[in-house]
């Protein structure tokens, strides 16, 4: 009997009365909703339903049999002791179903509530689609709610601010153009103290690889750029980084529902690689950015696939080990477990490759359960962590199941959690701290840097 079934029975046996929902105060949601009028709500919704969602949404809404099998996929549902309002079907029922049923004749309070659910109680992780007998993409339905909320100006303050940063700077952290270049020069200098001939080649036309990162790396996690440079150097690859906007592969506009800006960001990103005549883009350990450049942003622009091939860090590391371009001096000895990021596992199937890399660099790998495409989301993804401090507790408490999952791995001996995704890092860091799990958290690159020959 699977753990899921056991837990499910426990939930059903409890027959709990669930506490009522209380809106979390948020400047973006509250002020945005204050400005709404019934006419604007209805016309905006009608425009989206008539012009954007087409048959896809209609099929999903018409097909859903309300069977509730998706419930057991959702970490929010588990973590709220089976409160049906946190089940994917429950969230659909409280949001897009009502919107469609009432043909847009909903009020501002409804929009505010739907926006809070869509932005802060669903990570768009797509685990529920695997549990749905019809394979309905519930994440798409929640994205449609976000699209409507964006067009109505009812978006949580912090993620809206991030979207603004994207639009003004083409990166998500308000990093100015000089700060970006300066960070790279600084990291090159730092790394050159360890390896004198090491370079971070800027603006190198014709380099095989354009290495792209996300906004927080120059701002908060510059050591990751340093580590990547050391890996590139030791592997002897021909690579470059741009000294212009377009370096950031991340995309919170995809998650606010600002599709036009999502497209603009991806245009700048891919055209940077085209300008520099790079044959492929290798990206750091990020999940949502992969979704944006491999699936959503490129396709919004009419590129069926990424116009310049995109290689996620996991694929790149696996390639380097397979081709023996980097060698391990001594494997990492602390017992590790691996968190499978949704966007590159359910979204790309990189789970076995990730395990190959882990086994190349670590002596003691302990699986957490469930794993691979059945892994629970970190609850930071889908832009939820970017809704900021107002929703932190909700996010962390809404993923108690992840803490239990990590604790189970710890009970088997795991001391270190490997999470090859930035948002997963942020989410798991909070969970480890909140639930006092006392586990270390690392990127694959952290460990590769530590154990590689150089």
């Amino acid at each position, binding site marked *: 009997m699977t753990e899921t079934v056991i837990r499910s029975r426990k939930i059903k046996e409890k027959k709990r009365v669930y506490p009522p929902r209380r809106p979390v105060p948020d*400047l*973006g949601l509250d*002020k945005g909703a204050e400005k709404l009028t019934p006419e604007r709500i209805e016309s905006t919704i009608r425009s989206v339903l008539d*012009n954007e969602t087409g048959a896809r949404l209609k099929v999903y809404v018409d097909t859903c049999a309300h069977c509730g099998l998706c419930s057991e996929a959702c970490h929010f549902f588990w973590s709220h002791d089976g409160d049906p309002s946190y089940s994917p079907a429950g969230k659909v029922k409280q949001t897009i179903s009502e919107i469609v049923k009432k043909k847009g004749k909903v009020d501002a309070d409804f929009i505010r509530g739907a926006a809070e659910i869509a932005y802060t109680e669903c990570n768009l992780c797509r685990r529920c689609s695997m549990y749905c007998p019809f394979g309905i993409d519930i994440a798409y339905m929640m994205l449609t709610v976000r699209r409507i909320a*964006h*067009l109505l*100006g009812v978006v949580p*303050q*912090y993620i*809206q*601010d991030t979207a*603004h*940063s994207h*639009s*003004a*700077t083409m990166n998500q952290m*308000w990093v*100015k*153009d*000089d700060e970006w*270049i*300066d960070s790279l*020069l600084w990291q090159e200098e730092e790394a050159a103290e360890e390896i*004198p*001939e090491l*370079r971070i*080649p*800027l*603006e*190198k*036309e*014709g380099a095989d690889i354009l290495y792209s990162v996300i906004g927080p790396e120059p701002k908060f996690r510059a050591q990751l750029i340093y580590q990547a440079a050391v890996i590139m150097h030791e592997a002897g690859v021909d690579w470059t980084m741009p*000294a*212009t*906007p377009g370096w950031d592969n991340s995309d919170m506009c995809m998650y606010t529902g*600002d599709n*036009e800006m999502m*497209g*603009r960001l991806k*245009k700048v990103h*891919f*055209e940077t690689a*085209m300008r520099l*005549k790079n*044959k492929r883009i290798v990206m750091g350990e990020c999940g949502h950015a992969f979704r944006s450049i491999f699936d959503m942003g490129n396709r919004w*622009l*009419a*590129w*069926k*696939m990424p*116009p*310049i*091939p995109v290689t996620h860090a996991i694929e790149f590391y696996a390639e380097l080990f397979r081709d023996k371009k980097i060698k391990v001096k001594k494997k990492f000895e602390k017992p590790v477990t691996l968190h499978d990021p949704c966007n590159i596992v359910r979204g790309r199937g990189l789970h076995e490759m990730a395990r190959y890399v882990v086994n190349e660099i670590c002596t003691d790998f302990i699986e957490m359960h469930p794993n691979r495409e059945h892994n629970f989301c970190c609850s930071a993804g889908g832009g939820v962590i970017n809704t900021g401090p107002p929703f932190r507790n909700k996010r962390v408490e809404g993923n108690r199941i992840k803490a239990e999952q990590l604790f189970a791995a710890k009970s088997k001996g795991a001391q270190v959690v490997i999470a090859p995704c930035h948002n997963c890092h942020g989410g798991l860091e909070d969970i480890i701290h909140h639930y006092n799990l006392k586990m270390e958290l690392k990127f694959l690159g952290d460990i590769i840097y530590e154990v590689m020959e150089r």
Partner: protein
Amino acid sequence: MNGMHGWDWEIGRREIADLSRWKAEYKAVHETCVSPDGERIAAPVRTGETEFGLCENGELWEGEFDKVWYARYTPDGRLTALVSEMGEWTLAVDGAAWEERFEFLWDPRFSKEGGHITAVGQKGRKYYAVTDGVPWEEGFDNLTNLTQSPDGSHAAAAVQIIPMTEGEIFKFQAGVYTVAVDGQPWPRNFVNVWEMSFSPDGKRVAAEVRINLYDYTIVVDGVPWDTVFKTVWKPVFSPSGDEVTAPVRANGKWTLARNGALLWKRGYTQLWHHAYSPDGSKIAAIVAPKYGRWTVAVDDTPWNLTFGDLVTDLVISPDGGRAGCVGKEKERWSVVVDGKRWYGDYDMAWGPVFSADGRRAAAKVETKKTYGILLDGKPLPEMDGFEVLWSPVFSPDGDRLLVRGIREGAYIREVISIS
């Protein structure tokens, strides 16, 4: 290109520099650049543990720097590089540094003929456009999308003119950005300002903007078009300077608009990077006539040849009669001129270059890290196997081709007859 008639167009090959010697002499040799006439080659070099210099044809510039990067030749053949000393940055031009120093200086741009250089400088957390070493009088809280007029005597950029801290979403949405031309901001603010263009005479500027979170339009000299769109891309002035055109998204399709009104009749799944023929009689653009297929449309008529991966590097010949681009299908790159794919597909291809009269065209291509040249659709014999190659240049009469490349560690300048 400036002064081309005075270049050495004698047929023959000359070795300009032995780069293997540079590599033996210096601790590191960074990316090389070559002058337009091919007579000089330069690269930043590391001369000590933490000292850098710029080496040109084997000679080191006087003085050492804490850092040298972004070495580039101007179209009129001056060698430039971004240099830093004691934590301050400036631009060095032919060995002489601009007097003005900045906490950071980057993104130098050269005018078409090379007479003026404009870069972005930052000091005291204020941002300036800097032309020929002279910064704008007023600095801004941020400055992006630096743009030069064709002759380089004017500069424009998107600037932040209202201070804002992170999280002030409603202040942002009220508009804190505008366009500054030669340091003077337009009177109206916008939510966003992106790419912009000068008119050919440098007197007017058009920019793509977002006027609220949902409405995009083109602003010309501070005045928005009457029409708003779901999205727009970079506007361009017609060669006469009378009209502004831009790709716009309307009714779920992309098309071209002129002065706010839809110009092209056909709707595309995507349309961008449009360009005029020099006489203004034709407009070409990169388009996706349907989802996932890419080509070039000339005057709203797409070529029959399409590519699944991408189309880029649209070029119009100087005489305006021909157009070329690079296309990619299943990870193989091809050169295309007038809708016809040239011989072969490659690991990488560069945009074609045309002779002045448009009769001849050539392009650089790459196979397995070696480079060669295609001429008028076919590989040019003996012009392959380069370790590094720059795009070829036609002589003014179009009968000769200047090839600039590195073979077996030596930088070669060669002029060949193609008549």
